[in-house]
């Protein structure tokens, strides 16, 4: 914890911190996601900058108290501008021994360890694989500031006069933990009480009352017994003025897709098959019925993309959402989309692979698949969102490119972006990108593959348009007429034309923004969700005096124009990525430079300090 001398506050009572990283960990049934979200909301309302990241188990309901069933939620609150949910913890809340065992390694030495002793019976710690009570084992807890509270007892006592049964009472205990944390960080309970009432008030007012009572009891208990000899304060961050909301990446993607539909006036169609970690986009768009969104939960990944192809042909803004294994199944239909030159978007929320891999963990190892993973010469644009909020803008961008160039577009996000959240300064509607969609309706001289000379896009015709009946398909087409053609020269011409069309997009996309000076010893080059980790690391390294800058790609294929010139300003290029060097190798095929691959494939994102260490090591 970085400490600053408190200014004007009671001496020794309140410590002012620049930031704090807090993790709530417990059993999947302990409500840790809700607790973490409530804490984050109160921090957002207070004016902190923040970033969150949940960590749920792959099993839906693993046996209670086991390591497999541990669910966690991490939030980093700061008085500075931050871009990641942080790495090592200042505070760990462990609701049971399993949560302690899984998450203790991430707690900083000297960090606060709040445990619910109500769940530390012999059977509980045995279930977590301990041979004795870990709280009594100095080799385990000695490095930390251990704070023990029997939250079960506290909750039961608080609610003993209610009509709730024991099970319902015990479900409230997470709010006791939240009450303690809100006290610890000197936060007002009011916004949280309002939120609880909003959430439970209508359907179950007695549950709302119970949660509020336990929340207050937790805070009062901590204050009365002076649980810590001092509390903490993380001041407001200097955020740009405006209206904010906290948003997760998947949510931002879903909203961006709908925004594209609203901006163009073309109806949105989603064909999708449930898959972790992409399903939330399907859920969200399925709830947008009032906005006319058609969602089709298909029988499989292939039907999901094929219905999307059909919808694009029918004149919709069509999208399919999935993760890596789903993209593998969609590959043939992607080729059809390239051949038929139809506009649609495929969102790949990447997860750990190969095969089923690590469904709930993050990875960026589908880049080769995105750029090169199809039969034949099959180029299509590949975009990658850089942050949870960026998912919104990249979803719009994906549709802009798809409809302007009549091509499928792959948008890559990942589990880290999908479930991570950050405050979003809401844009003015008039500042959103504008793009128009044109449907060809003039039969005069119409040919299905007659191309726009500038974009090389073929016309988009809605079936039902009189006098423009035509046939398309996966067989090679004669340019212009669109008739089936096996002519060898025509095939070569078409291969080159499809390639030229996609490569031409390079002129139509913004050059990536350089963070730092345009010349130096090292450029840290990234793509996708590593943006925040690299940003923070480069920032610190620059403060330490290193001549290092950051370049982040959101348009990965084709590369925007001018990237080669930017790269030329640096002696070496460091490429951190959550794979074995896929961007590095791709870049080698595009621009000659001295690349250093920095892979990490652990199912976890990069941390600022890891990237920072690597920068120091390279420049040592």
């Amino acid at each position, binding site marked *: 914890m970085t400490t600053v001398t408190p200014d004007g506050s009671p001496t020794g009572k309140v410590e002012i911190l620049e930031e704090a990283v807090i993790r709530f960990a417990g059993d999947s049934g302990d409500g840790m996601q809700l607790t973490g979200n409530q804490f984050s909301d109160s921090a957002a309302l207070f004016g902190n900058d923040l970033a969150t990241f949940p960590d749920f188990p792959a099993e839906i309901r693993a046996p209670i108290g086991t390591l497999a069933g541990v669910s966690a939620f991490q939030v980093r609150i700061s008085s500075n501008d931050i871009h990641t949910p942080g790495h090592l913890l200042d505070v760990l809340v462990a609701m049971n021994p399993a949560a302690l065992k899984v998450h203790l390694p991430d707690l900083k030495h000297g960090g606060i360890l709040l445990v619910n002793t109500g769940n530390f019976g012999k059977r509980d710690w045995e279930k977590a694989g301990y041979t004795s009570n870990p709280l009594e084992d100095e080799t385990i807890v000695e490095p930390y500031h251990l704070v023990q509270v029997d939250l079960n007892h506290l909750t039961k006592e608080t609610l003993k006069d209610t009509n709730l049964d024991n099970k319902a009472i015990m479900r409230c205990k997470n709010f006791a933990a939240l009450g303690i944390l809100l006290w610890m960080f000197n936060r007002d309970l009011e916004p949280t009480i309002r939120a609880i009432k909003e959430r439970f008030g209508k359907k179950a007012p007695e549950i709302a009352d119970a949660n509020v009572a336990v929340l207050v009891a937790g805070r009062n208990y901590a204050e009365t017994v002076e649980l810590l000899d001092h509390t903490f304060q993380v001041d407001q961050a200097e955020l740009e003025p405006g209206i904010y*909301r906290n948003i997760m990446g998947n949510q931002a993607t879903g909203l961006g897709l709908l925004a594209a539909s609203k901006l163009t006036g073309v109806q949105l169609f989603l064909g999708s098959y449930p898959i972790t970690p992409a399903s939330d986009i399907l859920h969200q768009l399925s709830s947008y019925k009032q906005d006319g969104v058609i969602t089709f939960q298909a*029988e499989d990944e*292939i039907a999901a993309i*094929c*219905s999307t*192809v059909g*919808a694009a042909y029918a004149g919709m803004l069509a999208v399919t959402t999935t993760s890596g294994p789903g993209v593998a199944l969609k590959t043939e239909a992607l080729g059809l989309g390239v051949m038929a030159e139809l506009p649609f978007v495929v969102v790949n929320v990447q997860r750990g692979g190969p095969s089923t891999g690590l469904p709930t963990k993050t990875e960026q190892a589908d880049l080769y698949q995105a750029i090169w993973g199809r039969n034949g010469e099959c180029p299509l644009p590949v975009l990658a969102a850089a942050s949870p909020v960026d998912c919104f803008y990249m979803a719009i961008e994906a549709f802009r490119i798809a409809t302007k160039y009549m091509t499928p577009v792959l948008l890559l996000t990942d589990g880290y972006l999908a479930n991570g959240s950050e405050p979003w300064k809401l844009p003015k509607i008039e500042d959103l990108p504008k793009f128009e969609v044109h449907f060809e309706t003039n039969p005069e001289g119409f040919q299905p593959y007659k191309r726009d000379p500038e974009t090389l896009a073929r016309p988009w015709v809605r079936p039902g348009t009189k006098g423009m*009946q035509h*046939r398309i398909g996966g067989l090679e087409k004669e340019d212009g007429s669109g008739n089936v053609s096996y002519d060898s020269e025509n095939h070569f011409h078409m291969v080159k034309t499809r390639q030229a069309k996609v490569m031409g997009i390079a002129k139509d996309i913004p050059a990536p923004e350089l963070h730092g000076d345009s010349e130096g010893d090292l450029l840290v080059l990234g793509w996708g969700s590593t943006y925040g980790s690299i940003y923070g690391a480069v920032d610190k390294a620059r403060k330490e005096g290193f001549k290092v800058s950051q370049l982040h790609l959101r348009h990965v294929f084709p590369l925007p124009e001018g990237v080669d010139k930017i790269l030329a300003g640096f002696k070496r290029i460091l490429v951190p990525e959550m794979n074995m060097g896929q961007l590095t190798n791709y870049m080698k095929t595009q621009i000659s430079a001295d690349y250093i691959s920095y892979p990490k494939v652990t199912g976890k994102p990069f941390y600022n300090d890891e990237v920072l260490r690597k920068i120091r090591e390279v420049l040592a």
Partner: protein
Amino acid sequence: MTATQDSPKGKLKKTFFKSDQEVRWCPGCGDYGILNAVQSTFAELGLERENIVIVSGIGCSSRFPYYMETYGFHSIHGRAPAVATGVKLSRPELEVWVITGDGDALSIGGNHLIHTLRRNVGLKIILFNNRIYGLTKGQFSPTSEIGKVTKSSPYGSVDMPFNPLSLALGVGATFVARTIDVMGKHMREVLKAAHEHEGTAFIEVFQDCNIFNHGAFDPIVKKEVRDDRLVDLRPNQPLVFGQDHDKGLIWDCNQLRVVKLGEADETGKVWKEEDLVVFDPSNPNPSLAFALSHLREVDEPTPIGVLRSIKQASYEKMVHGQIQGIQDKKGERSLEDLIYAGKTWEVK
């Protein structure tokens, strides 16, 4: 392709639906008969060319869209029902037909077929069943009979075949029919009934592949045997067949059994037309249709015509009905409403 001629209803010729592309099926292929029947039916129905979309998969039959002066999409192997579902859900007002074959629909595309049928998407699916893989030059298909000798089964196939009609009935199809490539008039009637149907219409067409499986259906469809080997299902009519209308089907011991009319059987019973099963394709209970689909081709009559036609709301109607209902209740939101939703706060 760019003809803009209006379609005066009722006066159309089948050439109105003929595209400028040369038809490239093998001379003598059963596909020609089907193309003819579809073009004639569309003309008789007076359909607008621009409102028709024909989606196909891969296989000989799937070249069909190129020969039709309508909107067409020659997609990928087995996926036509999925592509067509996307089209129909997006644009329910369009008439969407799917052309597929026994390999395309029942092998690689089996999953899409069964789910399309259970959802009752408003597609008209014509399955060209020639019981062979033609385009890949002669391997056994999911409808080839046991023992079939082909390039990939030189010692005879040991794969149990599908019965497409039983399959469709089994997954809850709302319209199931069968017709034959050489019986143009019959086919046109079936196609018209399919056009009228709300939801998925599934039509199996026995189609001769004169190169790799020539004469596969001869034992039941040749002119001289046809009347004795086929039973043409007519709504609410007794199940009579035979050149002299002298045979029929009765329900006996939980199954259909063939009897000779006007003659005493071994028990001395003389069967009359009123003893026969009266068939009603609109019966929601599919048991009788299922029993008909299971008649043995070797020694029992093969049913043709409409086996099932029941009323059930189409999938696209349900989807759009739900959207409309919610829109009527809640109203559409502006982009601003959507973005500025949830818990917001202001930084000053």
